[in-house]
């Protein structure tokens, strides 16, 4: 079912309009974008996509329609942001994520700054963990969940961070089907963890699965 950009923008903006504690009203300004009016802060300008795999060309198409957006929201929760799209968004200084993250950005707003710098807590947490490792040379983002971890000592590793509260066998397989193969998966949700079936599924695909930071960190030192 192909929907028009206007349909997508109407739907996403209606979700935001229901946040009545934080939002006064929404105003659609282009088929791809809308303004979020709040009592305390200047309006936030939001772009909307609805794509299973977001490429740089999708981001560019939206920016051609509205170059002033601060945040681009993608309607499918599990939509993949490809590295090329993330690179372009970072270059332009635009925040991105599913509608849930947009809601977090709006409700968590504490000052007049635009939403451009917003990063969801789980993304920030995983990036921090990777960035703080002593064996890191540099990181390359492959998708929103997968990083190429280039090491000072050792071959590069493809590492995925999955934040599912209950990480099951089927969800491991689904993540690999959506995002592509990883050599290591780190379960980042401290309140939950992988099921025994998740370990079996990862193992059967040749993927190492960790849920303890110490074990994961040790692995990044191992050739």
């Amino acid at each position, binding site marked *: *079912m192909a929907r028009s950009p206007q349909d997508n923008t109407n739907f996403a903006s209606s*979700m935001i309009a*229901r946040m009545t504690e934080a939002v006064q009203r929404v105003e659609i300004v282009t088929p791809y974008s809308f303004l979020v009016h709040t009592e305390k802060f200047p309006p936030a300008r939001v772009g909307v996509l609805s794509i299973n795999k977001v490429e740089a060309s999708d981001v560019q198409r939206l920016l051609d329609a509205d170059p002033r957006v601060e945040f681009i929201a993608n309607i499918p*929760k599990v939509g993949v942001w490809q590295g090329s799209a993330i690179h372009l968004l970072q270059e332009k200084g635009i925040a991105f994520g599913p*509608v849930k993250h947009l809601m977090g950005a709006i409700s968590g707003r504490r000052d007049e700054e635009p939403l451009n710098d917003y990063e969801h807590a789980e993304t920030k947490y995983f990036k921090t963990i990777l960035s703080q490792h002593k064996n890191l040379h540099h990181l390359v983002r492959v998708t929103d969940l997968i990083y190429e971890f280039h090491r000072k000592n050792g071959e590069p590793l493809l590492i995925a961070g999955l934040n599912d509260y209950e990480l099951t*066998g*089927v969800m491991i397989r689904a993540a690999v089907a959506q995002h592509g193969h990883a050599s290591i998966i780190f379960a980042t949700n401290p309140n939950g963890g992988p099921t025994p079936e998740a370990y079996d599924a990862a193992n059967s695909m040749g993927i190492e699965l960790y849920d303890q930071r110490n074990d994961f960190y040790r692995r990044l030192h191992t050739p």
Partner: protein
Amino acid sequence: MSVPQLLQCLAKVIELTEASVSNARWFGFGSFFLSTKHFSDVDLLFVCATQEDGILIHQLCRELWTEWPVDLLIMTEAEEANTSFIVKWGCIPLIGGIPHWRGSQGACGLP
């Protein structure tokens, strides 16, 4: 694109999967089903006997998770039993097409 269309898509998927996998159970939880204000995504749980069934279902309901703000969790019965997920999260059973809770509770009852 609207909440009623989302519910229609969900009902279609439930019907399709119930015909394809025996002893399959769908549940809803989270803000869409339990909060009367807004929702950030539609949390769905599918419980089935085997991982193979789960993978089949994940493919069959592709339209649901590629086009809507849906967070789909698929568990085997053993995984659900070990985690008590249904009780822990107050999951609501979704049975036969348009679920019975429609309009009675949750953000899903909104126009």
